[in-house]
């Protein structure tokens, strides 16, 4: 579960977040939608304990992101935008490195790796990551992020720049995580994808949450045919 209350963040004179509040429930995919520069990545960086908020609070799995940063990180699986792999390590080694850092035993890590590889159709774990295509790398990033079986998953633009098969694989993976009862926060600027995947969405613009609801609710409220249309109406208001 993720609970965010009145989160504020400045970068110099730039107000990146102006009191953002939202909740993500277990067993749901919650979408954080917004145009570029809306504050999605800053919010995710705060939830991942990479940045600290100026005011407000955020809890992940019941732990405060400032006071219990280490416990928050143990509860989290994060795939950040433009995340890279260690190119000179093989896919397996990349995953096992993160398993080691999360304190997962080797037998347990191998067991989970096998399941996740099957789910994401990964058969290139023995190859060095430097040889992967973007889609191959992103699928491995997902495995790396959840190798310690975290209850909360944060995905920042996980399908950006991917081809169709890789995008479909990522979507299947996200649905599987949701179905297994995990909390999934899914940030994207692709509205059709949000419509397909998200149970509930928050629209963020210029550092503030400007609308929330299920994709269907948002479409009805704005009298739109698609979430994309609804999004544009909300953002332009």
């Amino acid at each position, binding site marked *: 579960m993720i609970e965010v209350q009145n989160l504020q963040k400045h970068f110099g004179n730039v107000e990146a977040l102006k009191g953002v509040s939202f909740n993500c429930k277990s067993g749901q995919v919650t979408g954080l939608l917004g145009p570029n520069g809306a504050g999605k990545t800053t919010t995710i960086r705060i939830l991942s*304990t*990479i*940045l600290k908020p100026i005011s407000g609070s955020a809890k992940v799995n019941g732990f405060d992101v400032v006071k219990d940063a*280490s416990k928050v*990180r143990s509860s989290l699986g994060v795939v950040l935008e433009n*995340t890279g792999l260690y190119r000179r*390590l093989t896919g397996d080694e990349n995953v096992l490195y993160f398993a080691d*850092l999360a*304190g997962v035993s080797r037998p347990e890590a191998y067991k989970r790796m096998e399941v996740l590889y099957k789910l994401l159709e990964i058969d290139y774990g023995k190859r060095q990551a430097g040889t992967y295509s973007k889609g191959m790398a992103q699928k491995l990033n997902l495995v790396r992020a959840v190798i310690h079986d975290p209850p909360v998953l944060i995905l920042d633009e996980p399908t950006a720049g991917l081809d169709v098969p890789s995008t479909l694989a990522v979507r299947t993976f996200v649905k599987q995580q949701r179905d297994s009862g995990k909390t999934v926060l899914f940030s994207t600027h692709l509205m059709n994808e949000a419509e397909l995947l998200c149970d509930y969405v928050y629209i963020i613009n210029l550092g503030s949450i400007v609308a929330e609801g299920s994709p269907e609710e948002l479409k009805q409220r704005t009298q739109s045919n698609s979430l994309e249309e609804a999004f544009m109406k909300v953002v332009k208001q």
Partner: protein
Amino acid sequence: MKSIFAVMRKEIKEAFRDRRTLIMSVLLPAVLVPAIVLGIFYFEGQSVKQETKSGYTVAFQGSEELRSFLANANLKVIDSKDVSDMVLQKKADVGVVEEQTSSHSQITVVTSFASGSKGENAASYVNGILPSYRELRIKQYLATKGIKDDVFSLVVVQSKQVGEPNAFLKFMLAYIVSLVMLSSGFVGNVYLGTDIGAGEKERGTLESLLATPVSRFHIAMGKWLALAVLNSIGTLITLLSFTFSYTYALTNFDLGLGVTAGTSALSIWGSGIWAMVIGAILLSLTGAALQFIISIYSRNMREAQLYLGQMGMVILPFIFVLIPSLTNATAMPTWLYFVPIVNASAVTYNVIIGNVVWPLIGMAFLIDVVVAIILALVVSKFMNKESVILRI
């Protein structure tokens, strides 16, 4: 602790798989350093051989007697009306002018301020043989006066060298090794340093790493230890390849120093090897921490390389600090053991010359470990600073 070693193991594994790292840290020191050292000494040996074979040329103006004396001393004598000009024009290595007065003969040895080592060697050689000429002339004079020349036996001057033959070469070796260590251990292996911090930023792996449950301090310690181990290996390879090629060249290329194989002053087995191991580790601890700080602060690898390249300037003052010990052929002063970075060179120098003081070596080690841990703490603080992490 487990997470520190996990980070360290991963960094070392990655480094050994990187072709650039292997070339810069292993191949270049193992091949290029010996090639340079052997090349320089070989050509120097050839130059000495050539000098000995061709002899020196003397521009001469003076008596026939002195002319014959010089010619008999294996010098090529060329008569000249303007000796100074011939020396300046480098038509002669040295000039000799003899002026006769009513009471005595005045001999002047002419050299140029612009003369190279051959000119200086020639002047030194001529100055060395002229006392014999003076003695010869005085004996001739005494004979004309009917005085026996045994007056020269009243005072006999001779020189004697004590101690180990070529002992100064040990100080020379210690000095050069300690300098090579400073340059290799402190500013060498720059690529590794740039990769470990700025490389993570550039590849976009830093944020994922910071989002893992491991503390920033453990990440910093793991990376620092990995860099220190890799730097130590690189420095040790450089030192060993340098030392073996240097000692081989000195004993096998005739440089006119009379150094032969088995010269004990050049033996580095035993304490010499230990000195290099201890020194390389000492230097790598602090060097790695400094490299890491600069690397993590930099926006990208290019910027890190620029800063780390400038770090070489820091060692320049230390080079001058070390010089008096060489010129006086003495041990490095005790206070140097307390100065991080330079203490690695001081320890190495002193152990190679046989001045092993274990409590001081232990003290230097302790100081460097403490300084390096403080620097690692600074790195972990840096990793908590948004301005540093997001400085991309």
